[in-house]
């Protein structure tokens, strides 16, 4: 971007004209798109391609042995990234050769990208038109950029892959889910807020909301408190590292693995118990309990224990690092003033690690709101142990009910929303301090 090549023609045309031309091109693209989607649908339209497409590549690589696919996809992907880097390196340079390189890239890349998706034949002409217009727009905007030609070009190439993934994979699906939540099972008929009413009245929907709230309140509290207590207790103790690893290990284990580990603890049968918990219960003279079917809420708390088991290690490691960062002078000063261990902990250590505690709490809360795996593995949502993150998938996979599924996802979104907003605000605050 430091490379500025003042072309003569660029000087002659005023900047406002550039703006007008860019705006006209943008409008033309939108207009072309509008014309395309208002065409009469053609029956039996077939996809067109240049003889190769993303689909044919995926089909080809999918036929290979899974382990062989790893190096191939890595090489192909590295080649694509390599082309991107070469373009970024050379295209912004001044000179006629590089000028034509930019021209070619601007037109070829969008064209190729669209054709790789195999547009249907009735849409091809419009798709190609849009691609070429977009390329022309990019080239012109780049050529007339204030920072010199090549600047906009490299910026777009740097950001385009990530932007495409984010827009197609997160922004569009999220909006589409919100839209779907107002339609019926199949997504054809508008039903207003019916799906939301269902969420709060149907037993599955109702329990998923209640349980999710319980998860979000209980799990962060217990994980953080146990993690903090443990971190304080083992601080500078002998074998601290080893003790840390024992509690931290569950963090690396998948929820599926953790689910099986704990299903074994909760195992219930007639006769001799092989599950630890029921063995203890019967050993103390009690009757064995079918823990994962026990209602009300007992099974939910059994699942919660598994989640707390996996999250405590995370809280412990983060808080332990924070405790070690509390200045020793402060603790020593408090000790000299006659404070006992508890008072030192409450008045010096906890205020010193407050921000870390908040991070741990919000992180675990977000994780507990989105939990899916533990419920899927351990109870399958039976006996009112379901949660939003699980029930949403359940509605879609078992009942093909897209409306209910979407409404549950939106409710989950509304629960997560304030926490992420809080996180973003914290992040901005930190940036300002820096």
């Amino acid at each position, binding site marked *: 971007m*430091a490379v500025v090549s003042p072309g003569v023609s660029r000087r002659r045309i005023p900047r406002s004209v550039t703006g007008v031309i860019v705006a006209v091109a943008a409008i033309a693209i939108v207009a072309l798109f509008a014309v395309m*989607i*208002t065409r009469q649908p053609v029956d039996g339209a077939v996809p067109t391609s240049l003889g190769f497409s993303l689909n044919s590549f995926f*089909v080809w*690589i*999918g*036929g*290979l042995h*899974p*382990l062989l696919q*790893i190096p191939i996809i890595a090489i192909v*992907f590295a080649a694509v990234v390599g082309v*991107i880097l*070469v*373009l970024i390196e050379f295209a*912004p340079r001044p000179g006629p050769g590089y000028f034509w390189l930019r021209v070619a890239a601007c037109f070829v890349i969008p064209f190729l990208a669209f054709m790789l998706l195999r547009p*249907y034949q*009735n849409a091809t002409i419009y798709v190609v038109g849009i691609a070429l217009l977009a390329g022309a727009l990019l080239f012109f905007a780049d050529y007339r950029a204030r920072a010199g030609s090549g600047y906009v070009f*490299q*910026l777009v190439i*740097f950001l385009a*892959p*990530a932007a495409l*993934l984010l827009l197609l*994979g*997160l922004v569009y*699906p999220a909006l589409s*889910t919100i839209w779907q939540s107002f339609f019926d099972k199949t997504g054809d008929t508008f039903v207003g807020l019916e799906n939301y009413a269902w969420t709060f009245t149907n037993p599955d929907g109702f329990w998923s909301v209640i349980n999710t709230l319980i998860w979000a309140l209980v799990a962060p509290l217990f994980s953080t408190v146990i993690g903090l*207590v*443990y971190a*304080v*207790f083992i601080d500078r103790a002998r074998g601290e590292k080893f003790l840390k690893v*024992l509690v931290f*290990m569950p963090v690396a284990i*998948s929820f*599926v*693995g953790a689910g*099986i*580990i704990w299903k*074994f*603890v909760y*195992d219930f049968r007639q006769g*001799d118990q*092989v*599950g*630890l918990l029921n063995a203890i219960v019967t050993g103390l003279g009690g009757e064995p309990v079918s823990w994962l079917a026990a209602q009300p809420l007992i099974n939910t708390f059994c699942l919660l224990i598994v989640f707390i088991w996996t999250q405590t290690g995370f809280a412990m*490691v983060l808080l332990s690092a924070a405790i070690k960062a509390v200045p020793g002078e402060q603790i020593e000063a408090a000790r000299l003033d006659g404070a006992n261990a508890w008072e030192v902990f409450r008045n010096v250590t906890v205020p010193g690690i407050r921000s870390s505690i908040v991070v741990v709490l*919000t*992180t675990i809360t977000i*994780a507990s709101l989105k939990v899916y795996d533990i419920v*899927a593995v351990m109870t399958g949502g039976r006996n009112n142990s379901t949660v939003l*993150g699980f029930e949403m*998938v359940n509605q879609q996979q078992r009942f093909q009910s*897209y409306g209910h599924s979407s409404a*549950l996802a939106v409710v*989950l979104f509304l629960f*997560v929303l304030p926490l992420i907003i809080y*996180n*973003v605000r914290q*992040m901005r605050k930190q940036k300002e301090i820096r």
Partner: protein
Amino acid sequence: MTAIDEPGIRAATALTAREVKRQEKDARNKLTSRGATLAAIVIAVVWTIPTFGLFVTSFRPGADSATTGWWTVFTNPSFTLQNYADAMTSGGTALTLGQSFINSLAIAIPATIIPIAVASLAAYAFAWIPFKGRSIVFVGVFALQIVPIQMALVPLLSLFSRGLTINGVELFPGFTLRDVDHSFATVWIAHAIFAMPLAIFILHNFISEIPGEIIEAARVDGAGHGQIFFRLILPLAMPAIASFAIFQFLWVWNDLLVATIFAPSSSLPLTQTLNSLSGSWGAQWYLQSAGAFISIIVPLVVFFSLQRFFVRGLLAGATKG
């Protein structure tokens, strides 16, 4: 410690009464710390026993573990490796646990490489190419974590399988991967997408800390952004990339949700196969336990061998999902 203690000791010698009190307090602190250590050991044991119990069970003969608790192994030891062999080959003709172990590798490795490459490009642009509205766009990317992946699953799936049709006009068809033997493409893309906001955020934080003078010097020497990125930024950002790579690899390896939705039945990873087998195994704990440890072994190896990177990646990537 001594350096910190010194002023304290001097103050204490000045006041005898205080000295006595201090000694008392030291004794009390030691007592509580002994109790604290004991409590810590109790927590550690409680945290370890469930895993240990299943681990022991995975080596006990099936007949034993069906009738007696794993703790009886200490009085009546008998071990076998047969459970692992049985678990590896169970799952019918379609997909055994062993095959889905390979699938898990084929999913997790590309799903780690792709998002990191794409995100590091974007992170570099956010850090070192000034443009209008840069910080707003960056915060917007970070805020995309707002979208729980549950929210994006269904529309993304229909985009992949049915393509895009607006107002009856079909723009592009989906991918026709139904009859393909081992298709992971949609899983790779889905994982890459869901990793993107966090990857950009973490890598940006690191890349933007690289001193500007280094980049300025390279630019004076005639390097463009392509060279600067490839020859300067990538090597310098390696620690951050490694940390995030390990985090992302484990996240994908341990993932059940994305695989459930996107992976075709012949391409299911370990977690998904294990989950469905777990249902049919029921109370056959010798299979359940061996299966669970087959799925846990890779994360545990990564965890113990690369713990430092793992912790860093975890702390940075805490809010993913």
